[in-house]
């Protein structure tokens, strides 16, 4: 077991132990915080596939997070009012079932990632950053100006959606769902990194010319990575909407994209557990500093600046030392 693996195992146990402690100490709000950490970490795991493995600096992942959120909001709001989404060409009804919502969220955000990726990956570097940011903003303005689903005010869902055999309104049971999904997603990301596809993607990040020389197309590798990445972030969006029982255009805002990226950077870019550490620290800072000062974003900004300028491996990088990402 390498040092990073030991740290990872410790982190997974900590994420599990904290809400269990809160459960027995009867602190439901702490369980909700842990759930939030798990969901935001999931969004980060998604982005990390594009950013860490593929080297694609996407500043528009809020688009997928928001699409996942709205997939949940739209389906559940139709189920709430018993008003079918479409009657023609065939009947589509709303649903309150989490698994179906997840599938819809993953498919729609994957489709959006395919479209955005196909266009933005024609460019690279700073163009790519600006274009993904702009497409994210496009969804934001669309959500604001489309009044059917609440427009600027967003959309409230009164009862959390259901999962067969579980009571999702019980915080610890909902946490269990998000924890299992996060672990599955991280397992998938680790497998992906070691698969032939992941190795090729990693190679395309380091040296696109060589990858081309051996007969593979970096564009196609990156597009597939971008779509997978968007799907996972979309799933996180659906869960986040279910946590809050509320969706609003804020999920699409560029700050959301920036924050998802910040989780990865705080934790350590390309590290499997980086997003989890980053999300946990972010939520802890928000909770602790937010209680001390209304202006806690200043401290976050200073911290982030110091990490970028002086501690480039993030938290896991400083603890586990330099090494191969995902090892």
């Amino acid at each position, binding site marked *: 077991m390498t040092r990073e693996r030991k740290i990872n195992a410790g982190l997974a146990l900590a994420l599990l132990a904290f809400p269990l402690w809160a459960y027995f100490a009867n602190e439901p709000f702490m369980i909700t915080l842990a759930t939030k950490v798990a969901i935001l970490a999931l969004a980060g795991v998604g982005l990390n596939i594009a950013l860490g493995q593929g080297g694609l600096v996407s500043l528009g992942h809020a688009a997928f997070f928001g699409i996942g959120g709205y997939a949940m909001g739209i389906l559940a709001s139709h189920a709430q009012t018993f008003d079918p989404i479409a009657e023609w060409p065939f009947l589509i009804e709303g649903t309150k079932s989490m698994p179906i919502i997840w599938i819809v969220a993953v498919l729609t955000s994957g489709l959006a990632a395919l479209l955005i990726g196909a266009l933005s990956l024609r460019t690279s570097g*700073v163009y790519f950053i*600006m274009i993904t940011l*702009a497409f994210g903003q496009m969804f934001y*303005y669309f959500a604001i100006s489309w009044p*059917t689903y609440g427009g600027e005010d967003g959309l409230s869902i009164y009862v959390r959606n259901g999962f067969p055999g579980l009571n999702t309104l019980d915080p610890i049971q909902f946490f269990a769902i998000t924890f299992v999904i996060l672990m599955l997603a991280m397992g998938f990301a680790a497998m992906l990194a070691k698969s032939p596809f992941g190795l090729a993607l990693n190679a395309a990040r380091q040296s696109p010319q060589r990858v081309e020389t051996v007969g593979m197309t970096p564009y196609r590798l990156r597009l597939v990575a971008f779509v997978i990445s968007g799907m996972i972030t979309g799933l996180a969006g659906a869960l986040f909407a279910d946590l809050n029982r509320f969706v609003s255009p804020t999920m699409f805002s560029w700050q959301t994209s920036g924050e998802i990226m910040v989780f990865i950077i705080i934790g350590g870019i390309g590290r499997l557990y980086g997003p989890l550490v980053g999300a946990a620290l972010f939520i802890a800072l928000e909770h602790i500093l937010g209680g001390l000062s209304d202006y806690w*974003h200043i401290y976050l900004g200073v911290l*982030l600046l110091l990490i970028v300028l002086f501690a480039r491996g993030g938290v896991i990088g400083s603890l586990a030392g330099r090494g191969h990402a995902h090892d």
Partner: protein
Amino acid sequence: MSFILFAEQVLNGLQFGVMLFLMSAGLTLVFGVMGLINLAHGSLFMIGAFAAAAVAGLTGSFVLALMAALAAAAAAGALVEVLVIRRLYDRDHLDQVLATFALILIFSEGTRWIFGSFPLFLNIPDYLSGPVTLPGGIQYPLYRLTLIGIGLAVAVGLFLLISRTRLGIQIRAGESDREMIAALGVDISKLYTIVFALGAALAGLAGALVGAIQSVQVGMGEPVLILAFVVIVIGGIGSIKGALIGSILVGLTDTLGGLFMPALFALFMDNSSAATAGSALASMLIYILMAVVLIVKPSGLFGARA
């Protein structure tokens, strides 16, 4: 739809476009010369607006307010360049994005801390308020017309600066080969600070000018910043000409789209749903324009490199 309404909207689009130009000119210069992507450019826009509102509140003079905006944004730009940005030139774009994202957080919350969360107001001075009558009987606000004039004057000034002055020669040389001009004895780090402060001053000016027709509030810079990115993607990175043409294209598309899309949808839908679908699609129009430019010319209309 009357001719007068159309002409007014074209002028509005032009006004919006030249203000975007002030933002994107600085951004594209900084990228072209230093290879740096600066997300905090929107914060400099905001700083200009706040400085103008504060000085106008104290002195009542609009000219002083504009000068304060220029000075405050240029000073903030130079300070940030020396303290932070300078360390980022050799880093990859991800580090630049994150560090400048951190700067946005610091600037936005800092401004909120000093000025509070409530928007400030900057009034149009008396001698620039009220409408003027243009040929063709179009009544148009004098202030907005002044904005178009200032924007075009700045554009001409920038062209002259880049093509005719010593500083312009150094900027162009810096774009094509930074080692070489350093070897020729140009103080490159001073040049970078000057270019960054110049871009910042233009953003601050835009913030102050736009601040008089909107409210001055925290977070006002970022929507404009993202539009400036769209402009740069369309025009091509590093090209002032591209920034000007891209700005005007985006300004006109956005303004005229808001006018025409609902009318277009009304041809085959009932009025209320046409207004809904039309305005929703109009809000996406500039991004669709950007996508089309990307498909046809991935490096932008006037971009040298992708």
